[in-house]
């Protein structure tokens, strides 16, 4: 009997730990999510994870209609950038930075435009045709004139 009680107590502790770890994460997930956003002229609604990775590692330079892709990114230290890299691209920020440096200093392409924060990101995405970036935002608060691209996380 005492051992059964001990087991139950352990179960309770386990549940409590799981809930306390998972709930804040779930809560955050419900409030804000990382979304891929593009200029309103971009006629793509869905991308696979590998297609998104191709765009952000600068291996894809034009949209299917032939419009040049302009990638917009926030600094390494930005929370949105970190979540975007790890969750959607499945890359560590340093891997992305290294790829961009290689591209920019060997003539392969052009570095992404830099946005210091979400407001700047929205501004560039609104103005620059063919641009694509990301936002850590409550899906209900997506700004107007910005096209959201759904990512198939396969």
């Amino acid at each position: 009997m005492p051992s059964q009680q001990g087991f139950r107590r352990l179960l309770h502790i386990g549940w409590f730990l799981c809930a306390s770890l998972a709930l804040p994460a779930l809560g955050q997930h419900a409030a804000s999510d990382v979304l891929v956003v593009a200029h309103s002229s971009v006629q793509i609604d869905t991308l696979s994870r590998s297609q998104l990775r191709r765009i952000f590692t600068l291996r894809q330079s034009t949209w299917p209609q032939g419009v040049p892709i302009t990638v917009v990114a926030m600094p390494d230290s930005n929370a949105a950038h970190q979540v975007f890299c790890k969750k959607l691209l499945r890359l560590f920020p340093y891997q992305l930075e290294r790829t961009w440096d290689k591209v920019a200093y060997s003539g392969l392409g052009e570095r992404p435009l830099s946005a210091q924060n979400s407001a700047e990101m929205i501004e560039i995405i609104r103005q620059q045709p063919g641009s694509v970036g990301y936002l850590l935002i409550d899906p209900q608060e997506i700004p107007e004139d910005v096209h959201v691209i759904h990512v198939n996380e396969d």
Partner: protein
Amino acid sequence: MKMKRTIIVTFCLLYGSVCQGQLNEPVVHGFVSQGVIQAKDSNYINHDGEPSLRLTEIGVNMSMRLHDRVRVAGQGIYLNGGNRYPEGVRIDYLFLDWQLASGLDWQMNVQVGRVKNYHWLFSATRDVPHTRPSIILPQSVYFDSFRDISLGSDGAALLANADTAAGSLEWHWSYGTSPISDEQSENLFSNLATGEIKQTKDHQMSLVFKPIGTSMELGLSGVNAAFDYHQGPQDRVFSGSATSKRLMLRFRYSSENWELSSELLREWVAYYGVFGPGGDIHQASEGGYLQWRYFLSPELTLLARADLFDLNRKDRSGQLRFEQTQGAVPRYFGYMDDVTLGVSWNIAPQWRAQFEYHRVKGAGRLAPVILPDTVHNDQEYWDLFAVQIMYWF
């Protein structure tokens, strides 16, 4: 009605010119770096082994879109690396890039002009300090005396990449020749060789595969290069030719806090007629490195690396060459093994300081290659210290 049409036409023209402006705006980047370097008991940097400021790398590059699918890109650099390679200003790359075709899962480009060597792990940006893991790259693969030749070539390149259900693939091909300066010739032969080296062919190919769902990359690359040598006045070597064929394997695994990379090579080198009648040489070199980097914090990265190189796989101890030259070339010219420890510190955004120490055994990757400098490289073991400050934009 007329007014409305005028407004629409004006708007369209304005919109067109704005788009045109965005397309034609050149994007400029660059870097400046200065360091202090000392290679005691070797001629790697200088002949006296004293600390030297001959560790300067400066560069500016530009990329400009001429059309939706056409770009021009170029980079000019100034380098001073002491005895490692000729000092001066040079055009690192200058080419026209045309995106031939693409889908959402693949793309193919062709480049024409002075194209870069994208085939090895660090070859594309070996002169850009902040993109390198260390100030001095592993000499087995990134042999400084061969730098100008392996940097890229005047010719054409095809670059293709695709994503499949198994992972992503990158395939690069290039063909051309590299100009070889008099100083570079001296680095390869020695100042006793007064003639001229000309590269007649530089053919390279590489394939890199990144399996899906992993942080790993695997690669294979090959080089097939040929050279002609024309004898000069009072030359110690004769007119002839040489070929160099290289096969390389590469591996990289990236984790959140550390990264492991390695490149292995075998290089077949042949000299025809250069050493006189009956003096043809055929030899295969082997080497490679294993490098571990640990990201201690966003500011600090540690590096540990072992780099091994044997000039002739059938004479790893250098004994055969020692005997063939009647003792003129010491045994330790048959190999060069290097253990490196380094730290990189991001002082501020776009500013970095790097420090490293190398303990080296052997002189098999020291210039000149063909007639070695046994006077200044009179020690089997030697050390190298280097510190470099870099800024990039």
